């Protein structure tokens, strides 16, 4: 049995995710695609440990993440899951480097050491020279890369990207995904991307199609076929 999620009560009760079950492997870049309202963001929230399923559970390696206490689950997310939010959610009052350092600071790393490591992460995404600027001084593509640098700061083995190209033009979006594919996808990491941008499907290993809360299809991409 897969995971389910209901919202609301009585007549307003909505079955947002319906018996969804799938596996993802380390070294895989998995896309979840589908129209708005198909349940893909809800499903993404449940597998990343921030929205409790109404039924079913999520297992990452040997850990049933929904059996963890709230603190343990927060710790699990902090160390093993990196998030890139659709609107980036960068802190405009912090520098770019300080934004990237946040996961390290939450792991109780000393401030200066965390910021120095964040600067090294910014170098990975090509933004070292922007380290001391506030995010608002950066372009949309650059902010996206800062969000990616923050997501990989604590070296997570699962990377979750929510609509990573939604605010970017076509070329920038493709460049970002190419970068993610080439530099961040390793044998020890699984990347899950929610998108409805068909222009970037070519970077996926596997594509799950969702509609009306169900998985309606699974496709192997051309990359995997090669």
């Amino acid at each position, binding site marked *: 049995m897969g995971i389910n999620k209901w919202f609301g009560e009585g007549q307003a009760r909505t079955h947002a995710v319906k018996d969804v079950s799938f596996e993802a492997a380390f070294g895989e870049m998995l896309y979840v695609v589908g129209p708005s309202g198909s349940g893909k963001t809800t499903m993404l929230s449940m597998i990343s440990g921030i*929205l409790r399923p109404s039924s079913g559970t999520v297992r990452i390696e040997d850990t049933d993440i929904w059996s963890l206490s709230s603190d343990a689950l927060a710790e699990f997310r902090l160390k093993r899951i990196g998030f890139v939010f659709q609107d980036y959610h960068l802190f405009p009052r912090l520098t770019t480097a300080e934004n990237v350092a946040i996961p390290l600071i939450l792991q109780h790393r000393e401030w200066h050491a965390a910021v120095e490591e964040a600067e090294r992460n910014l170098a990975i995404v090509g933004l070292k020279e922007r380290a001391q600027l506030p995010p608002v001084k950066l372009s949309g593509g650059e902010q996206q890369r800062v969000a990616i640098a923050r997501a990989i700061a604590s070296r997570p083995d699962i990377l979750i990207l929510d609509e990573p190209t939604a605010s970017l033009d076509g070329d920038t979006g493709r460049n970002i995904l190419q970068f993610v594919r080439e530099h961040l996808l390793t044998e020890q990491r699984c990347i899950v991307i929610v998108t409805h941008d068909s222009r970037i499907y070519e970077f996926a290993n596997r594509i799950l199609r969702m509609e009306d809360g169900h998985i309606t299809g699974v496709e192997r991409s051309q990359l995997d076929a090669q």
Partner: protein
Amino acid sequence: MSAILKLAGVLQIAYKLLINDRAKFAALLVGITFAVFLMIEMTSLFAGILSRSSSTVINIGASVWIMDPAVQTVANTIPLPDYVLDEVRSVPGVKYAVPLYSGAALLKLRDGTYQAANVIGLDDTSLFGRPQMLAGNIEDIFAENAFIAIKDAEFYKLQNPHIGTEFELNDHRGVIVGIARVASSALFGVPTLYTTYNRALQYIPNTRFTISYLLVEPKTAADIATIKARVAAHGYLALTRDEFVHKISDFYMYQTGIGTNMMLMTIISFIVGLSISGQTFYTFILENIDKFGALKAIGAKGRELVAMILFQATFVALTGYGIGVGLCAALIWIARSHLPDYAAIITFSNLAMAFVMVVVIAAISSYVGVRKVLRIEPFDIFRG
């Protein structure tokens, strides 16, 4: 690693989020500072008034004061018969007891103008309660027509007299033989003259009884209870210095409306401060709510987010408190240097009261923020 050290990083994030949002930070500081300034200014004025209302008690400095039970303030004297003095002196625990005259008089100054004054008549034999001389000798008080002028905030109203300056009091000639100072100026804005008890009785019209107060020094503190009981048996009241000051303070606080008005102003200041700071802090939290949600999604624990908000509220409160106290102290200093009559004293009680109120403002503001932040679901961040 201690809990504080573990939180050092998130508190630094909280600090930067707060102070780098200069507009909000300034608005929060203005709210708290304004509230603290008003609260301390109001209560300092009240403390100043209360202190001056007891100026005679403070300046004379006797340990025990004996009076008619109907006395409400030190200026509102009800004369005691002489036998009370004899009775008190006969109490075994009394080291000594002396009479004090305190009354009002109208002086005719050199230029022919009239000036009200407070006249203190010290016991002729002991001069108990004598002021600290600035010019002249205290013994000169026994000279013919001798008065000592007190150099306080009202001194200029006597046209800045010097030794030898003459005036008239009820058609009697008076001469200033010394200038002295006392610890506290009087409340009612009139200058003070010291003379002997007997001269005061000669110069100022009196009722049948003449002693304003009896000043008593007990042999030991334990004797005070006996003195009180003996005095009470004759229908009079014996109070220690602190009890008399409290009695006067209570009168001004509860029976004149001054205390009520000051309390209302202080409460209004508190409400204004709470409104400005609470509203601004709530807006600050609302504007950052998605960031707190993102932190929660990334892996921040609830207690870390609570610590961030409490730190921000506490930092703003303490900074605003410091600025407010500083501004108030500066205003009082400037006012006193230009207005000698200005009665305001910043006391530890005022500071403590304002601090407690600031803590309450910070607590209420942060409570609202904490509720909001703990309720945010990281899922909402994904949903946009």
